């Protein structure tokens, strides 16, 4: 009886290892940080696009007001895709749209807005990308929904038909 102990434990061990790896096969190995919700917005200071004025986050975001903070750049193709959605959202009176111009050349950004029109109530520049990191973003486009100086939701990637429904739900 005693000599059978070892092969049985080995067998059980391999079964456990196999099941762990088999389960792991089905997991996506692309990680998306799921944090940053219901968090206070980070404090930052930035330059207003097209001027030399400095603003800080307390001046931009008021209490009792919905904000959409959209990170965009003229070199980013998905930003063009989501642009019509932003133009649509601009018509909402409840909502203010803040644009964070991410690592962009001023001239190309201006051309982008001239060509496609400007959906933003205010644009701030993020030349070295550090403000976006403060927000926990890691790519463009990315959109944060803010209420009462808290991040209530975020959309990674361009806004599309599905995510616009989510925004509508929140704005109700």
């Amino acid at each position, binding site marked *: 009886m005693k000599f059978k102990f*070892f092969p049985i434990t080995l067998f059980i061990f391999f079964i456990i290892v196999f099941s762990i790896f088999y389960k792991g096969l089905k997991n996506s*190995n*692309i*990680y998306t*940080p*799921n*944090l*940053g919700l219901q968090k206070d917005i980070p404090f930052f200071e930035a330059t207003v696009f097209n001027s030399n004025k400095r603003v800080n986050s307390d001046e931009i975001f008021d209490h009792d007001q919905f904000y959409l903070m959209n990170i965009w750049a003229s070199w980013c193709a998905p930003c063009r895709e989501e642009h019509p959605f932003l133009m649509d959202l601009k018509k909402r009176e409840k909502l203010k749209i803040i644009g964070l111009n*991410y*690592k962009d050349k001023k001239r190309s950004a201006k051309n982008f807005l001239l060509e496609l029109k400007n959906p933003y109530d205010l644009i701030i520049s993020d030349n*070295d*990308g*550090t403000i*976006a*990191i*403060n*927000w*926990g973003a*890691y*790519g463009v486009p990315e959109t944060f929904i803010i209420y009462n100086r808290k991040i209530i939701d975020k959309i990674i990637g361009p806004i599309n038909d599905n995510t616009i429904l989510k925004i509508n739900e929140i704005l109700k």
Partner: protein
Amino acid sequence: MKLIKYLVIIFFMFNLSFSIAQSKDLKTKIAKNLRCLICQGQSVHDSDSEFANSLKILIEKKIGEGESEKQIYDFFRDKYGEWILYDPIFNKKTYFLWLLPILMFMIGGAIIMKKFFIKK
């Protein structure tokens, strides 16, 4: 004469490795311990993506502001979650990861004990 030659070689070897060690400053060390989220599988130090470059700038800024290594790691963990760190902390999600090598070591020890000592 031979002894002096050896001593000189040893002296230079130590000098060289010392200077290399010094050039690897804190910024590089931190960047190497952070995972790039755009090109997953690379560290921030190795990556040249927009995200990684911004991260490097921010690390430099934070070091300049006098923040400690731990404070910087905590900042990034807070923003992006545990996953950005290559060295995960010990908690209820990672205890298996940390304890498995010790467990295996103990099982191996038990097998050896059984084979060589108990049989006799």
